């Protein structure tokens, strides 16, 4: 299936990646090329086949509900672009 510039604009917005308008056409061509190649999956009969999400099909392990880590804000914040008084500083979210 070919995807157009408008679809790329929408998907880039969903993915939170700024793509300049003049890149949308060429990205649409690139992505369409990949998706066209992927279309061959439609040749495979998958009626009644259960999807396989992981090769390790075991139940998630349980552990005791106790604190095992924490209380170390300096390490948590060590790589923050902006931090103040043990908090991450982020752009204003609520007007």
């Amino acid at each position, binding site marked *: 299936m070919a995807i157009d510039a408008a679809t790329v604009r929408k998907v880039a917005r969903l993915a939170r*990646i700024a793509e300049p308008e003049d890149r949308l056409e060429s*990205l649409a061509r690139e992505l369409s090329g990949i998706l066209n190649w992927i279309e061959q999956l439609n040749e495979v009969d998958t009626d009644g086949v259960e*999807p*396989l999400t*992981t*090769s390790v099909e075991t139940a998630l392990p349980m552990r005791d509900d106790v604190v095992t880590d924490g209380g170390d804000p300096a390490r948590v914040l060590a790589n923050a672009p902006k931090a103040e008084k043990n908090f*991450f500083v982020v752009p204003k979210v609520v007007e």
Partner: protein
Amino acid sequence: MAELTSLTLKAALEGLQSKAFSAVELTQAHVEAVEAARALNAYVVETPDKALEMAKASDERRARGEAGRLEGAPLGIKDLFCTEGVESTAASKILRGFKPTYESTVTANLWRDGAVMLGKLNMDEFAMGSSNETSAWGPVANPWRAEGGNAKLTPGGSSGGSAAAVAADLCLGATATDTGGSIRQPAAFTGTVGIKPTYGRCSRWGVVAFASSLDQAGPMARTVEDAAILLTSMAGHDPKDSTSLPVETPDFASFCGKSVKGLRVGIPKEYRVDGMPAEIEQLWEQGIAWLKEAGCEIVEVSLPHTKYALPAYYIIAPAEASSNLARYDGMRYGLRVEGANLAETYEKTRAEGFGAEVKRRILIGTYVLSAGYYDAYYLKALKVRRRIADDFDQAWQKVDALLTPTAPSAAFALGQKSDDPVAMYLNDIFTVTVNLAGLPGMSVPAGLDSQGLPLGLQLIGRNLDEGTLFSLGSAIEKAADFKAKPKKWW
């Protein structure tokens, strides 16, 4: 002491044990080799001070009689592994300057056993690539060059730095990761040994995530036995990774050199693809002959869904990546590019921080997971994934392991395939099936092509049966007697 760097890991451990040299001497020789090989761009961070400090501590432990399994062995670490206090960027601008405050489980296991870290190894950005050209820090050059030529070749990807460093004697062994072939294809391109173990053998904790249901760490080394020694240290159950398997780790080296007589080895006919160079076909035949001579029974098998593995992978891996890479939002670590509001800050940060291939895969992944396309693409791919895993289950009724070529070509020139994403993706045609099914796969150097470039053969095994791969791998290694080394030009 250049000769210290050309030892196998095993010989180096024996030399340390017999006090022929110290860990400091061994490490110093490697530090000098690393500094002299910057033209290869294999290391993105060199940690000579840390290495010598670790080596000194190692010599002290050995003197106290507390030597571990890898005591004093200088290793290189793929930049996908978080290393405490040492910049870990996954070769992405978005993580420039990121110094983890924790250590990945796999590297912690290596240091527990006495290994020494020489530095961080270059790779494709977020492990997305097959030629190392997507690295934000520039591509790695393969130490191998075609006979009579001086064009720079790719070392393969994504673990290209690991492969080049091992091939050029810039470490005794290296960590790597494999999501679709990222250990095995670079091993084939550089004449080194690489194994992707069974999914869940090695903890993914502290390894920068690409596609979590496929990612698996493994070693790269100069011999099959060296790879076995490294994997024995790297593997093991880790409660911090819920997909880590609660199984004992065998001493993998004990499988090396064991008789392979009577083992049934399958040859999947679907791996004879159009356009495969005759030399690779011949090498495969040679591998079959070697295993026959060693007493294996060769059985033709069919894996009918092989050709659908790559397209399924290019839905599943980008889908998982688009979710995993959502964390790079400029808020808690890494790059932040301020915009007029929160959404614009996210968008600018990610536009500037990610390279073209990473963006392409995030967009594909976002698209196939978006409303209206989820069933047609993502769910379909997961059903095909089941078909591929079922193919292998059928094969295991008849055989104990499979033998295939590792890659459809030898190393190609940097720049040769970078304009065509699908042509680049086809590099992983023989390796990607194994990731989808979670199986162990190993690449062993088996010969040189007419241009003098290394070629590899791949062995695929049952779940948790790396032991058989190490036995078969050492049988091929012995028969191939692969001794060639790249001629030093760097």
